[in-house]
């Protein structure tokens, strides 16, 4: 036989449980309604479709150690850094193609970032301000810092000519599409690296005016 007070206690606890369940359900419904009211499924900003523009790619050719200009139509964003990354990505996509004249695996994903900074005055030392705040800096020469992925460097074909052709085509392509870029430095995974694949120096600043390989006369 169950005692009376235990029956009363059981009833009170059962009622409390049901009441608490009802309150929780109501709170859940309120929260759900609040989320639905706050969420706007319509796009806040129309996706920007970059207009197609002509980009100049300076493509390397191993057969005759030459750099050839190639014009392609690409949707280029207005942001200079994004534009540089996209153009270089397209260049490396050409190198990753099966029938590439300068085969280098990796493709567009090999360009991690491209940073554009005011070019340091080579006579007066490095620039002190990285932001182009002054009008002279806004239109002055720029230093591009190209951050390559480690997988690109490790899979790059080894050889003086192969490495220097890659570097010079990147430098020349940047300068062709962003004429203010006069100097280029390279990082690999965000760190300085002595050479690209054992030969070409990656610690120096490459100038857009650097001499390109001169093709020797063939017998």
């Amino acid at each position, binding site marked *: 036989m169950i005692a009376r007070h235990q029956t009363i206690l059981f009833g009170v606890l059962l009622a409390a449980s049901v009441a608490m369940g009802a309150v929780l359900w109501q709170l859940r419904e309120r929260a759900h309604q609040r989320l639905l009211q706050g969420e706007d499924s319509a796009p806040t900003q129309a996706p920007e479709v970059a207009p197609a523009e002509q980009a100049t790619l300076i493509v390397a050719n191993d057969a005759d150690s030459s750099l050839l200009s190639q014009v392609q139509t690409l949707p280029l964003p207005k942001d200079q850094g994004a534009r540089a990354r996209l153009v270089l990505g397209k260049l490396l996509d050409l190198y990753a193609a099966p029938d590439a004249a300068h085969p280098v695996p990796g493709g567009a994903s090999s360009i991690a970032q491209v940073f554009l900074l005011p070019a340091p005055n080579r006579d007066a030392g490095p620039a002190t301000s990285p932001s182009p705040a002054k009008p002279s800096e806004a239109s002055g020469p720029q230093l591009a810092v190209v951050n390559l992925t480690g997988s690109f460097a490790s899979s790059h074909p080894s050889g*003086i*000519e192969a490495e220097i052709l890659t570097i010079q085509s990147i430098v020349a392509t940047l300068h062709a599409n962003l004429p203010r870029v006069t100097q280029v430095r390279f990082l690999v995974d965000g760190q300085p690296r002595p050479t690209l694949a054992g030969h070409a120096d990656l610690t120096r600043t490459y100038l857009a005016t650097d001499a390109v390989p001169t093709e020797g006369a063939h017998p």
Partner: protein
Amino acid sequence: MVIVEAALSLSAPQSRGSSTHRLLWELAVLVAAAVSIAAAAQAPPAPPQAPAAPQPRFVVVLDAAHGGDDDPGGHLDTQAEKAYTLALSVKLRSLLNARGIQVVTTRESDANVDTNRRAEIANHANAQACLSLHASQTGSGVHLFASSLPPAPPTRFPAWRTGQSAFITRSLAMAGILNSALQHAGIAVTLGRTAMPAVDSMTCPAIAIEIAPDRATDHAAGSAAKASLDDPVYQARVAEAIAAAMLEWKTEVRQP
């Protein structure tokens, strides 16, 4: 002495005259001899016959690239780049020694030699030519690379990483001779300039030589073979051409 002998020769016919006359002539001869000896004593001594200046020794530094665990090139056709460059260095040393050219090598075995150490060896050798030997599957023929540093006048204490600046002009001249010799041997040549830490630190006429497959020959022969890096005939042609170029460079260096 010439004056004394002339006086004595003049005194000979006088000796046939009277004794007073003869005495006067002998006195005159003695005075003339004394005067000539005094003049000779005051005159600066005639320069001695200068011995022939010794020819400066002609030294070539052969830098077989990579070695040890430094082998970024992986494998060429059948061997690693470090092994290929070492074999080429050994072959070139024999050819140059046979032509009377002294050779200093940066490595003689499969050892990892630091970039700075390679430049140190070259700079201590006071060499007239420094050749950095490489090999690659990319491209065709032989690629000659000089440093891309701008020319600069020689200084007493050049900066380490730009020591090659003072030798750029001579390096380019040596590249021209190598280019001619290789083309004379029927090998395609590509000339270029690049930044390489070891070459940029060398204080001697320095060229990086990269051997690539002789694809032009393959095409001409209609051969399906992609590369001929391991072809001993091709290797010998390249080595002989480089040795011939060094012999010509030796002649050029010794010309005033």
